[in-house]
């Protein structure tokens, strides 16, 4: 086995893990607080990507700046979804929620098709072609930057949940919605804020990975599946879990591409998922089994 290849694969996989971590953070937040399984996750992220793309080609704003706009837009979208849809069916059977979000996903995907057409797009950033070589191994600069941003976003969210009043009430509502109500928390408002913040993370993540991942209107499903994978492996609702899970899945897939046939690399991540589900269903960083 070619050692350079293994080393390169490990490094590329590790750095690409930043992309995966970003994808998973918003999902784990929405689930952790709301217990909503957001099947429209990937499609919301695709909209974040398209917004970044619009900002880039229409206004010349680099996605590493424009992500703030995308986050704001998706924040309001998330608020709307929670207030307009999710809240109305809290008493319905659990599976209805899945159906509702599938409907939202279908609308988002095809609205993107109508608005932007079917061609794959990719945001061009001056960083995207840059490389640094260390002997025979290279470092992809865009991935390095994304990795740093994933770390920063995870840390910022963690601080938000731990240190702010709103964050603390979100965690309280997540742990015990009844108790939170008893001590006078407006649970409805907290939930709306949580969905909004989670959606904002999804929007920001979409913008930040848009120079690395090409996207098209149908990309949502794949993004959702990968994100769910990561979140389960890391532990539903756990921010460090989403971060570490992203890196783990990425490295596992990269090693799968080195040692197996690359077209089978998904087997590695799904195998990992099944193993985690069976032996540690709470995930690597989760608290208790669901």
């Amino acid at each position, binding site marked *: 086995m*070619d050692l*350079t*290849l293994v080393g*390169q*694969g490990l490094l*590329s*996989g590790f750095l*690409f893990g930043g*992309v995966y971590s970003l994808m998973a953070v918003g999902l784990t937040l929405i689930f952790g607080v709301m217990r909503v399984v957001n099947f429209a996750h990937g499609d919301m992220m695709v909209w974040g990507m398209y917004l970044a793309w619009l900002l880039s080609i229409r206004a010349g704003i680099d996605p590493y700046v424009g992500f703030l706009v995308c986050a704001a837009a998706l924040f309001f979208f998330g608020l709307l979804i929670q207030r307009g849809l999710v809240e109305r069916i809290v008493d319905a059977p659990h599976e209805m929620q899945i159906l509702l979000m599938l409907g939202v996903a279908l609308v988002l995907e*095809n609205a993107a*098709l109508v608005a932007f*057409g*079917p*061609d*794959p*797009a*990719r945001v*061009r950033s001056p960083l*995207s*072609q840059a*490389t640094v070589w260390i002997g025979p191994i*290279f470092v*992809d600069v865009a991935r390095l930057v994304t990795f740093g941003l994933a770390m920063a976003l995870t840390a910022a969210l963690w601080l938000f949940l731990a240190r702010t009043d709103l964050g603390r009430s979100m965690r309280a509502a997540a742990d015990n919605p009844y108790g939170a109500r008893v001590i006078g928390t407006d649970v409805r408002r907290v939930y709306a804020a949580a969905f909004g913040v989670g959606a904002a993370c999804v929007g920001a993540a979409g913008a930040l990975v848009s120079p690395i*991942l*090409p*996207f*098209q*209107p*149908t*990309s949502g499903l*794949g993004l959702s599946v*990968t994100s769910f994978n990561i979140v389960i492996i890391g532990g539903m609702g756990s921010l460090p879990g989403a971060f570490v899970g992203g890196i783990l899945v*990425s490295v596992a*897939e*990269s090693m799968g*591409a*080195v040692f197996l*046939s*690359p*077209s089978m*690399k*998904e087997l590695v991540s799904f195998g990992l998922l099944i193993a985690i589900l069976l032996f540690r269903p709470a995930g690597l960083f989760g608290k208790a089994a669901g």
Partner: protein
Amino acid sequence: MTARRRPENTSRRTFLKTAGAAAGTAVVAGFPAVLHAQAPTVKIGTLHCVTGPLAEPGQACRLGAQMAADAINAAGGIKSMGGAKIELLLGDTQTKADVARAEAERLINAGAQLLMGTFNSGDTAAVVPVAQQRRVPFLVDISAADPITANVAKSVRDGQQKVQYVYRNFPTGTLFGQRAVQYFTEIFKESGVSPKRVVLMHANDLFGQNQARGFQAAHKAANPSWEIVEVISWPEPPSDLSTEVSRAKAAKPDVIAPITRPASAQLLLPEIAKQRLDIMGIVGPGSPGLYEAGQIAALKENLEYVMASNPWPNFKNARTRQVAEEYTKRSGGKTFDTNSGYSYDGMFVLADTLERAKSTDPDTVVDALKKTRFTGGLMVYGGPIMFNEIGDNPNAIPAMIQILGQKPVVVWPKDVAAEKLVFPRPKR
């Protein structure tokens, strides 16, 4: 065994009762020319995947077919049928086989007398039984999987079916592979260098695997002086191809032979540049992703000098240039290429067939289809459009195109080449 088709008016009335009724009128409204026409019309149902994962090529096919129908109508329609105009009934397969089948039925009930489509081989296979059951001639404009026509031909040969209603004007995977291997060998020879090591990299989806298999089989049969040292495939659409490219690099290739989709091409080509592969060139055995206007805009210098063996419009033909210009206008800046071109030609093949059949009776149309010798195609062909005993056009061939000065041009075979090919690519 054969069910007789219901009288047209019965199904028409039933259809009107159903919700689908509006479809027919909506289509007519979309083609003002038809409303003014006094002449009878011929209804042709087109089935393409204009939504779903393959919406990009599907929409190109639909527009190509629409432009062809407009051109035929503007030139006086089907003259032998009293100047009958072509009316298109548009179907969307959503890239799903069950939807493809239901849509085919819907269009036939709306009065479609001929069918054309569908781009995706799986969906095409689901339309085949509808065409055979309801005796509606079906021209496959695009779909490369060999069994589609071969299976029907076999069924007729074995006496299970009386008539073959399914024909295809598009290269099969086998034919694609044979031509690609031939072009590779000729181009290497022409350029006076002798690359030895080719790494085949392909999307592991229906089309990618079909192309890869055809290429490998043809390579084995031809046994040329170059070898395929490694085959690397990825799940389509991929999120990351860096390790795949590292693996290709470790195989020390002289040439990378990619079979991509637009999305994977946008990952693959920059990655090859970033990892600084020391290669003579990138030569594709035939796939989308390497020549479209949108891809060139997104990939810029990464696509320069890339070659691909693709079915391609013959731009030496003045009419092709004229249609291509109009296509770019109507599509909002897209290139007239493989997909739009083959759907365009497909519609003209059907018009030519009707002209000779002088009727829409399915068996008369099939007889005329079998005798087709059409030379008015806009694509690069190896001879007139015709259908062999399987129902395939043996003259549907790809041409080698290369991106030169950020534009795709035909560089091989020599007699249709617009410019001289550049291989090996200049060192940067």
